[in-house]
């Protein structure tokens, strides 16, 4: 039976933990709103770019000299996985879900006889994967201490990835990130970066009827790296929004758990207190009777 003092101390420490988690929950909720707004604002650009690319890609698929960024390489020996995670933890399984998925994918790809390289975006993913797959990590970037993510950040990452692809370090690139489905659910999602996964055009036109300036090839040379940056940017923003949502949910349940814990401890504390009083009364009474 713990003493009254230790119980009191425990109740106090759980109470202060609860204060922290509920404050974190509120901060995450406020940041989530901002992150969602930012993700929302970036959608029109990504949408139009996807449209343009889809229109151009249809005719380019049959071109034997098409840009490898669009159609990929004939032989895929090395695969690059870009793992997008958050820079901070305390968000439930948000980061470990990505790490788990990446590990599975690495195993699956290696079973197919392919080489795998990793690029980690975000500190937590790098920390988690460095331990057992440190040798595979070819690049890493995080945004620790940054208020918001700018497009130029995504552009830098895209440039690095394109450079590696053109130097032949890898033949296929896939992005793994948490898709912000709703505040309660974030889904680990895989998206092809190279070759570009141009969503099929909605209308039934397979041949685009656009005039193109300067010409298809030159335009695609400019458009494809740009599109890569846009997709990475979108993933970073989704990841950001998902992170805050996940943190909010995690902190919410932590606050609730702390409340239950306090209730249980208070009950124990009161029982112990009453038991003490009863014991003392019995001692006094039996003492008085003995006289």
């Amino acid at each position, binding site marked *: 039976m713990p003493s009254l003092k230790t119980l009191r101390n425990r109740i106090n420490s759980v109470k202060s933990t609860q204060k922290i988690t509920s404050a974190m929950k509120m901060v995450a909720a406020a940041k989530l709103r901002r992150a969602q707004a930012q993700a929302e604002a970036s959608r029109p650009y*990504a949408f*139009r770019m996807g449209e343009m690319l889809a229109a151009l890609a249809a005719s380019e698929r049959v071109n034997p000299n098409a840009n490898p960024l669009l159609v990929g390489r004939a032989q895929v020996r090395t695969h690059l996985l870009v793992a997008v995670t958050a820079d901070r933890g305390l968000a439930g399984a948000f980061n470990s879900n990505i790490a788990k998925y990446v590990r599975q994918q690495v195993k699956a790809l290696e079973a197919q006889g392919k080489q795998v390289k990793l690029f980690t975006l975000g500190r937590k993913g790098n920390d988690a994967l460095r331990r057992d797959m440190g040798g595979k990590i070819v690049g890493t970037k995080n945004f620790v201490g940054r208020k918001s993510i700018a497009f130029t950040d995504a552009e830098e990452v895209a440039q690095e990835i394109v450079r590696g692809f053109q130097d032949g370090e890898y033949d296929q690139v896939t992005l793994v990130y948490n898709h912000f489905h709703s505040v309660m659910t974030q889904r680990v999602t895989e998206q092809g970066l190279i070759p570009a996964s141009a969503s099929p055009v909605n209308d039934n036109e397979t041949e685009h009827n*656009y005039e*193109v300036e300067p010409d298809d090839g030159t335009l695609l040379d400019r458009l494809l790296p*740009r599109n890569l940056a846009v997709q990475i*940017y979108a993933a970073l923003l989704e990841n950001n929004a998902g992170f805050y949502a996940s943190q909010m949910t995690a902190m919410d349940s932590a606050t609730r758990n702390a409340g239950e814990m306090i209730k249980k401890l208070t009950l124990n504390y009161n029982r112990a207190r009453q038991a003490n009083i009863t014991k003392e009364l019995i001692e006094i009474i039996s003492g008085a009777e003995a006289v």
Partner: protein
Amino acid sequence: MPIALEIISPEKLLLAREVDMVVLPGTEGDLGVLPGHAKLVTSLRGGLVDIYENNQVTDRFFVSGGFAEITESRCAVLADDITRQAELDPALAASLLDEAKVAYAAVDVADHAAYLAASDRLIAAQAMVDSITPAQADRL
């Protein structure tokens, strides 16, 4: 009949409204877009996007490059980096131009992609300096 113009940067939708005409700085030369324009996709060089309403320029934006998608009724400008012409900073423009000149001088001509990037950057920086009106430069 107006044309629906959208100016979009990666970060946000900057402007979406109906205008009479847009003049875009295409890589192959400036192009004026009126309603009923043939479907066109083009890349943009650094320069000014002019918006015309009632035969007058009502808005001017500086873009450092990007793309435009034009259909009969719509014109979407996907800009890399965009500033209102009135908000251009002469000092920033001058320093960007100096940087771009240095980068251009240092670039390896054999490296096609790097050379293209450097020359694009130089063109954009020069266009930014040229887009600043004398009145704006004087205010400095």
